[in-house]
């Protein structure tokens, strides 16, 4: 996974006056990716060699962790756009995932659509919802020092959406069956097909988003607004519209995630909430605005949870995730793949 797509990097590289710095940064980002991946591999090898757990168990944990990390990556990619470009601490991200899951659920159970076909519908639906949220509410709060207002509005939205879903659908868990059941076998470990599909979806989404950001006019506008909203406005970018489109793109990601995870997650009005804070952890870990960072961060956190779970049963592994988070916040707030602001 290429990781030089950190938006600040790309934005800087489009500036002709300083052709050297981005290359240096890009090289250091690649180097860092290599270092992180090497560390992960070394850690896993150590677990194999001296971990004192059966190899079968470790392989299963790694496969599960990578697949879980794909799901985390799906949710985090949207958040990294929203947090990275708009600076909005979107506490509704997980709840929007729940909403997407319910939209897909309704399409499957009432309209009788295939869950993956309905995913193609949840994406534009969630894009629209995100666009409206940003253009009607959050755009009023885009000045400097408005972090708290934005956070409170998204918190309010999270509470509102979750409780409207509770009112509408009740609290009983729901589930849909996937069209492709069964398991793949990888090095003796079991990989359920729906999770593999979700993982592939995450990779596709990462590639797609990167292409949008790099190759399209919209992507150029988003990168320019991320670099300097004022500067973008001066050269004729409709900043508020770009904000709304960016937020929409961010929620479209959970739209995709909602359909992809529905076959293997139990659906309740609070199903997505657990992802909000994990997504923040991953976004900070991966670096704000870095799509590749979100995917790699998701994989790292997924592995920490499952491989860590071999040693710290129950919720102990999640505790480890938060420790990682706080350490990153303190010592490298720009994330592993972000460049210093």
């Amino acid at each position, binding site marked *: 996974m290429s990781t030089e797509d950190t938006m600040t990097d790309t934005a800087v590289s489009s500036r002709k006056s300083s052709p050297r710095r981005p290359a240096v940064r890009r090289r250091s980002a690649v180097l860092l990716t290599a270092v992180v991946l090497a560390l992960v591999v070394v850690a896993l090898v150590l677990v194999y060699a001296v971990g004192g757990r059966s190899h079968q168990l470790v392989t299963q944990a790694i496969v599960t962790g990578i697949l879980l990390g794909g799901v985390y990556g799906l949710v985090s990619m949207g958040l990294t756009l929203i*947090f990275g470009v708009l600076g909005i601490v979107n506490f509704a991200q997980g709840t929007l995932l729940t909403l997407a899951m319910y939209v897909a659920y309704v399409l499957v159970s009432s309209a009788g659509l295939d869950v993956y076909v309905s995913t193609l519908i949840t994406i534009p639906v969630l894009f629209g919802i995100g666009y409206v949220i940003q253009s009607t509410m959050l755009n009023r*709060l885009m000045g400097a020092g408005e972090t708290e207002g934005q956070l409170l*509005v998204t918190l*309010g939205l999270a*509470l509102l959406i979750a409780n409207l*879903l509770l009112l509408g659908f009740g609290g009983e868990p729901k589930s849909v069956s996937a069209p492709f059941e069964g398991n793949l076998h990888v090095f003796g470990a079991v990989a359920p097909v729906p999770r593999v599909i979700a993982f592939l979806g995450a990779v596709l989404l990462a590639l797609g988003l990167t292409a949008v950001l790099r190759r399209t006019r919209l992507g150029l506008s988003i990168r320019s607004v991320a670099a300097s909203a004022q500067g973008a406005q001066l050269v004729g970018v409709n900043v508020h519209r770009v904000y709304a489109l960016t937020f929409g793109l961010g929620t479209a990601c959970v739209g995709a995630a909602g359909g992809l995870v529905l076959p293997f997650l139990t659906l309740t009005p609070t199903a997505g909430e657990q992802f909000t804070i994990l997504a923040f952890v991953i976004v900070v870990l991966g670096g704000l605005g870095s799509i590749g960072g979100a995917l790699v961060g998701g994989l790292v956190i997924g592995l920490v949870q499952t491989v860590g779970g071999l040693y710290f049963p129950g919720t102990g592994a999640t*505790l480890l995730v938060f420790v990682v988070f706080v350490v990153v916040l*303190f010592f490298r707030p720009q994330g592993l793949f972000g460049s210093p602001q």
Partner: protein
Amino acid sequence: MTTSAPPAATAPPRARPWLGNWTVLVVGVVLVALLPYVLPASRESVAVRTLIFAVMAVGWNIMSGYGGMFSFGHAAFFGIGAYADAYLLVKHGVSPWIGILVGAVLAAVFGVAIAYLSLRYRLKGAYFALATFAFAQMLLLLTSNIEALNKTRGFNVPLVPGGSWSKMQFPIGSHNYFWIVLGILAVAVAVNILLVGSRLGQYVMAIRDDETAAASLGIPIMRYQLAAVAISAAITALAGGFYTQYFLFVSPDLAFGAQVSVEAIVPAVIGGIGTIWGPVIGAAVIGPLSEVTASILRDPPSVLSFLSGRSGLDVATYAVLLILIVLFLPRGIYGSIRARLRA
């Protein structure tokens, strides 16, 4: 009091504007103390919960409203208060009166520790909020994994038949719980009023309004910010300790869950951040809301009949209120009214 204008320039017409706050506090406490004689018994638990919200919100407001350090993790302090009381009482038979105070001290120490780290590493705005959130989540996970704290089973406070002042337990129908939490709220508001009038409070607000300017005047930024955090954490912990005593049960989720942090923030935001009475007024709005919506749903008008028997309307309502207030009345109910009156 909370405007950034220098005190000299505003030249208050009253010699001691804070005197008004003391009058309101005394009169308010006396009036509210009479409430149990008027309220039907079934409503008293709503009133107690409202007062708990108010204490939490007053506590949150000191760190985040006056201090400008937006906390999304006050559940940490609430939970420390709740667990300190439960642990000391259940495992060591310590009186809740002492347990609650111990909880307040522990919460203050914990608050200072995490705030020191967060400020030392210059976390600001969103990052500061996320760090406080993460610390609260860590405590949630820690308590769920520590056997001495009964893991996820939590603590049941053993019942004392007939009640006992030293164990802070009273028979059903007693108004003592109400008066105790009212007393805690009175203390919290009194501390808040004192703070606003004190050098400490003035410095904390000066730092919030312009850290660089405050530092250049020689104010030791970190020390005063940590003091505000300590006071804020201690007050919120009092609410947590009382919570354990009132509901006689506490679990990691009830003590450290994210919704607890939300419950500390929302009343303050709705009433008015950075004001003395905002959090109290916000709690008075939010507290009874679940009761009101529950009664609507019990006998719904025909438009809402499809909602009968469903839950979630109360939180949905206050979520809407929260969004509308942030968008259209960013100073909150009390803050806006006060600004209007002063203009």
